[in-house]
């Protein structure tokens, strides 16, 4: 597979994708970097004096910045935990023999097709509303006080909504992984005297580790930039309890109209994302030989 000819061809074939992505990354990034040094607000776009690092110090000293950072991590980790653990369990369930397995499968994967905004609207209004929401009404029906999700546990609410959307994704990948486990290995373990739990722990779970890594990688990419769900439900509040970095940046742009600060925030977010990326690459390096 490796003559000079094919190597050159390969380079040429890769070039278009790499180039467009490079442009897509560099042009806005350069503009963002440039804007991040200007005092540029949407309400006065004509006078944009150069202010150096002021936007950065403004963004980084934002009293909600640290909270947003923490929330971002909680959001990502929380959703990952729910989807991976839930995904494994549901995958195990779907791998069993039972009546209507196909229908249950369809029901389980359905949330994956729902737009994030719709998911957030439906959950916020029809599930989690303390008075009209189904959850609230069910709690009332059994004599409990309904939880006011969006104010009492705003971050958890968002984690739940996002996890609901991503659970099918995790489930599908993990199910495929599960089904690809050779029956030989399970049988060998059975012959070796392992019970169902031991088989799961020593054989099945390690077998799925690669799939789990992929789930983590892909989801992290999407979870770092959660925005619509927050906008629709809590708008980052109460206080900054459910503000993540992305939302914080968005707020600079949309509610303050402060493009300078938003750009600085964007750059900060890119740096943070890259730190996460490096971490992820470390994590998956051995598990994902590309």
């Amino acid at each position, binding site marked *: 597979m490796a003559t000079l000819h094919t190597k050159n061809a390969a380079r040429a074939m890769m070039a278009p994708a790499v180039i467009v992505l490079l442009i897509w990354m560099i042009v806005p990034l350069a503009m963002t970097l440039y804007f991040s040094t200007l005092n540029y607000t949407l309400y006065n776009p004509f006078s944009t004096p150069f202010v150096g690092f002021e936007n950065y110090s403004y963004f980084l000293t934002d009293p909600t910045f640290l909270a947003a950072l923490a929330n971002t991590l909680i959001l990502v980790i929380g959703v990952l935990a729910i989807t991976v653990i839930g995904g494994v369990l549901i995958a195990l369930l779907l791998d069993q023999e039972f009546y209507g397995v196909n229908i249950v499968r369809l029901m389980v994967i359905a949330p994956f097709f729902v737009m994030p905004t719709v998911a957030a609207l439906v959950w916020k209004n029809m599930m989690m509303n303390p008075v009209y929401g189904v959850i609230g009404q069910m709690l009332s029906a059994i004599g409990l006080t309904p939880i006011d999700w969006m104010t009492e546990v705003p971050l958890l609410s968002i984690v739940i909504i996002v996890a609901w959307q991503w659970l099918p994704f995790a489930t599908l990948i993990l199910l495929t992984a599960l089904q690809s486990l050779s029956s030989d290995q399970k049988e060998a373990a059975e012959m*070796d*005297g392992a019970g169902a739990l031991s088989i799961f722990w020593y054989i099945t779970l*390690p077998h799925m580790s690669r799939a789990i890594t992929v789930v983590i990688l892909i989801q992290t990419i999407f979870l770092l930039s959660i925005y619509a769900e927050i906008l629709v439900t809590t708008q980052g509040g109460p206080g900054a309890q459910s503000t993540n970095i992305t939302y914080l940046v968005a707020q600079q742009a949309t509610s303050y109209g402060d493009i300078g600060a938003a750009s600085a925030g964007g750059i900060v977010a890119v740096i943070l994302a890259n730190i996460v990326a490096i971490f992820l690459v470390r994590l998956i390096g051995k598990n994902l030989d590309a």
Partner: protein
Amino acid sequence: MGQIHLEKVRKAFGDVVIIPDLDLKIEDGEFVVFVGPSGCGKSTLLRLIAGLEDVTDGQIVIDGQDATELPPAKRGLAMVFQSYALYPHMSVRKNIAFPLKMAGMDKAEIDKRVDYAAKTLNLDAYIDRRPANLSGGQRQRVAIGRAIVREPKAFLFDEPLSNLDAALRVGMRLEISELHQRLKTTMIYVTHDQVEAMTMADKIVVLRAGNIEQVGSPLELYSHPRNTFVAGFIGSPKMNLLGGAEAEKYQAETIGIRPEHVRLSTTEGSWKGTVKVSEHLGSDTFLHVESPVHDEPLTVRADGEFPVHAGDVVYLTPEEDKIHRFDGEGLAMKTNSRAVA
């Protein structure tokens, strides 16, 4: 101990009967080889014994105790899979230790046994590697290691060498034979390799479509095949089976003569023929000879180099006393009577 008796064992997948009523006694310490064409039920039978499949009917008795309903783990058998089924995420040590860990054995004892097994199988040097970093032969040994640490009542092997290359296969074959001599544990071994079956077995079980065609020692099967199926199946290259006039000479429906039991000459003999293909291995020469006595070419083996080539005329003389006679149903006939001709 490792006595395994199958009594009227029957296995059907849905409506398809794979094994119809099979009886088989395997005595303690025997090396039993199952052979048979692909799909005849060898693996299924092994899996029934292991407990990885339920029998549809009948009983499996291990050491005098009914094991039909026992789960695999409780039968005290160890299995070596064709794919080896090593645990890819565990080191060699952990792989071998796994059954012991599952049995709840204490750490020190496990280590002792694993080390011993590893030494026996020459695996010490690789003990911390993962299976992915081992060669085929080494993997095979790990699979065996995992089986022997448990000191099982019997070993079950399902075509354990079929994934190895020819040279390695010879080596591993000898290793398994030696292992059997050393451990004296019952072994049940599935293969479709002639040489393995002949060289390793104390007892060969020839299966066809779930039925036992013949059970016996390798040489018994070689010298006295019970029917044409076994005759054709055991021995390589295959026995030449002739019908028609030649068979009638021997008052049989079919006669069989092995390639190594035909004398070759370029000048004279019973059957005249033309060489279609000649294969010169140095140590042997195989000739595929077209002859009026049979519509398919006859295979003949000569020791050493026999310098004939495609198109040459040769004469073949079967060794009279090595001729096998079969009746209309393909069953072997008692004595090898001389040709009347």
